[in-house]
């Protein structure tokens, strides 16, 4: 009884306060919430993502904010743990009362937050890749990276073009590798590619020679694909070279960064992977619509942080820009209006690709937003 009364009094006070605030809303910041894996095993995702968000929120505020209101970034580090991610999402939604969430470095973190987001009806732009995030479509959930399924499609079709139809697959047992493996197996069936060997390694393994020996000794293998992220694929690449395997070698977009080239060194020579054009900004043709945005993001990031730009930071860039665009189009931070606006974004050119959202597609990217790159003389070379 007392509780109900208190609650009602609270509600009344809140309404009164809201009325007062209305007039002062011009200065009220727009709250952008984020939970990212800034430390822990997925820190190579979360770290550049946070740096990107911090930097561009600053930049946007310097140039007057959005709708005349400054942006306020509230961010937490989920250390790559899905339970922490869920708790921080809960804090962002319920305690910090953010207007939109741009975050979720890994698929596990994203999916753990989804039930809260759907219930609270807050627009959520995820920075994680797996196809389950937006397929089936969830009303309030969007994502900026291409899905792993697109990566598998892109890789396997490139293989087929080179006449490779029987392959060995080696993948990580982490979320990225496992989801990539599942998608590769499905896409392979559709494209008529045979997977003759299918082995895995765990994220903390320090030597994958045994698994690669297994693939090498499988009769008929014409090419090898490694789906994984972190340092694992770099070790795979070095072991691959040490074992003297001469078959064409593919990596996934999970290692699309210059850091990977530093780790793998000369062993990476000749391998191919699908990536956003961020790694080869200068080899894009002049008429490529992405050229300008890619070049400026790379230049700005590297100038600000004195560190190499990575594909993953670009996911956060695109996420933030989509959020800003949607809020501008909606003319307010009213969640449903922002959600609708996000869903209707067409032809938005980002670093990752061109986004064409729709009620049926909350990712909005096509497989061809991935470019196939090859390592030549220790540097990325655009193949197509």
């Amino acid at each position, binding site marked *: 009884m007392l509780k109900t009364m208190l609650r009602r009094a609270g509600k009344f006070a809140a309404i009164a306060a809201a009325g007062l605030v209305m007039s002062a809303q011009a200065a009220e910041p727009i709250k952008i919430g984020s939970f990212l894996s800034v*430390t*822990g*095993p997925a*820190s*190579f995702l979360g*770290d550049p993502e946070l740096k990107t968000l911090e930097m561009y929120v600053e930049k946007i505020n310097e140039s007057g904010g959005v709708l005349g209101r400054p942006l306020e970034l509230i961010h937490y580090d989920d250390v790559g743990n899905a339970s922490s991610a869920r708790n921080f999402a809960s804090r962002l939604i319920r305690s910090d009362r953010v207007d939109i969430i741009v975050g979720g470095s890994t698929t596990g973190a994203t999916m753990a937050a989804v039930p809260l987001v759907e219930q609270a009806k807050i627009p959520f732009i995820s920075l994680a890749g797996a196809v389950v995030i937006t397929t089936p479509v969830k009303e309030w959930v969007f994502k900026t990276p291409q899905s792993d399924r697109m990566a598998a499609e892109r890789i396997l079709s490139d293989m087929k073009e080179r006449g490779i139809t029987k392959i060995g697959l080696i993948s990580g*047992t982490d979320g990225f590798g496992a989801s990539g493996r599942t998608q590769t197996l499905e896409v392979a069936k559709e494209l008529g590619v045979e997977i003759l060997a299918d*082995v*895995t*390694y*765990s994220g*903390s393994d*320090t*030597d994958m*020679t*045994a*698994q690669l*020996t*297994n693939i090498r*000794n499988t009769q008929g293998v014409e090419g090898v694909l490694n789906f994984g992220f*972190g*340092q694992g694929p*770099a*070790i795979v690449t070095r072991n691959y070279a*040490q*074992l*003297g395997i001469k078959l064409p070698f593919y990596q996934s977009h999970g290692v699309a960064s210059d*850091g990977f080239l*530093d*780790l793998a*060194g000369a062993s990476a020579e000749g391998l191919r992977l699908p990536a956003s054009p961020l790694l080869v900004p200068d080899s894009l043709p002049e008429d490529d619509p992405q050229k300008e945005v890619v070049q400026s993001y790379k230049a700005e990031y590297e100038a600000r942080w004195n560190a190499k730009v990575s594909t993953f930071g670009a996911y956060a860039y695109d996420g933030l820009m989509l959020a800003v665009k949607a809020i501008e189009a909606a003319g307010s931070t009213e969640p449903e209006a922002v959600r609708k606006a996000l869903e209707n974004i067409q032809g938005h050119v980002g670093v990752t690709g061109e986004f064409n959202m729709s009620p049926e597609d909350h990712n909005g990217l096509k497989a061809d937003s991935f470019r196939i790159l090859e390592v030549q003389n220790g540097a990325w070379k655009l193949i197509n």
Partner: protein
Amino acid sequence: MFSEFLQYLFTGITIGATYALIALGFTLIYNASHVINFAQGEFLMIGGMATVSLMAMGVPMLLAIILAVVLAGVLGILLQRFAIAPAKQADVVTLIIITIGASIFIRGLAQLVWGKEYHVMPNFSSDEPIRIFGAVLNSQSLWVLGIGAILVVGLVLFFTRTLIGKAILATSMNKEAARLVGIRTQLVLMLAFMVSALLGSVAGVVVAPITFTSYDIGIMLGLKGFVAAAIGGLGSGVGAVVGGLLLGVVEAMAAGYISSDYKDAVAFSMILVVLFFMPRGLFGAKVVERV
């Protein structure tokens, strides 16, 4: 067929030698204090990371390695002096939690100082792999095995030929009696931490060219070292070496022949099998409890 087997064996022995060195570190501290030192993996990380960062500053490799190992040794002493010694009244379990706190702290510092990226350390000698009967051996593997063997022999001599070594051994057998014959047990404990830090950091340095190195490399390798020590029978030096090599080889064979998904599960099942059938571990001593 044979070349395949040989390949798995090479892989297993190399990583197994690393596990063995870490397991020896666990064993030393366990014998001196009955503490399972969960910061053991961090010594390994310090070895690799300090070497890499010193080399990046232009310090020659050999000097960088020596400095890194010394740094780890100092850290071992600090850990004992400032974290373990002040809490000497505490339960063993409390001491174990202190080492967990220490490992998180050291890892956090390393992340602040050195960042979160993985780093490359060049091979000590040629990058060209060696081919034997169709199997391939990374030249760095020879370094891992050679230095591992030297350390093990050195340890044996240390414990059987030097007064300090004998003092450590005596303390591990009976703390009270050791104190009565005039051994300063706190000093012995400090030495045990230092020596095991040295072992760990050397392991970290020699294996870094194979595994890369980063602020968090110590977590899993440290744990595997503990598993190796458990298989060998916690407290037994021979057990630590055999347990380490066995763990490495079983992992590699399991990945090659059985299932790469479950190779870690096979390694952990080994602990259970050993505990069920050889309850004191492969080489664990029979302990009589005093009433």
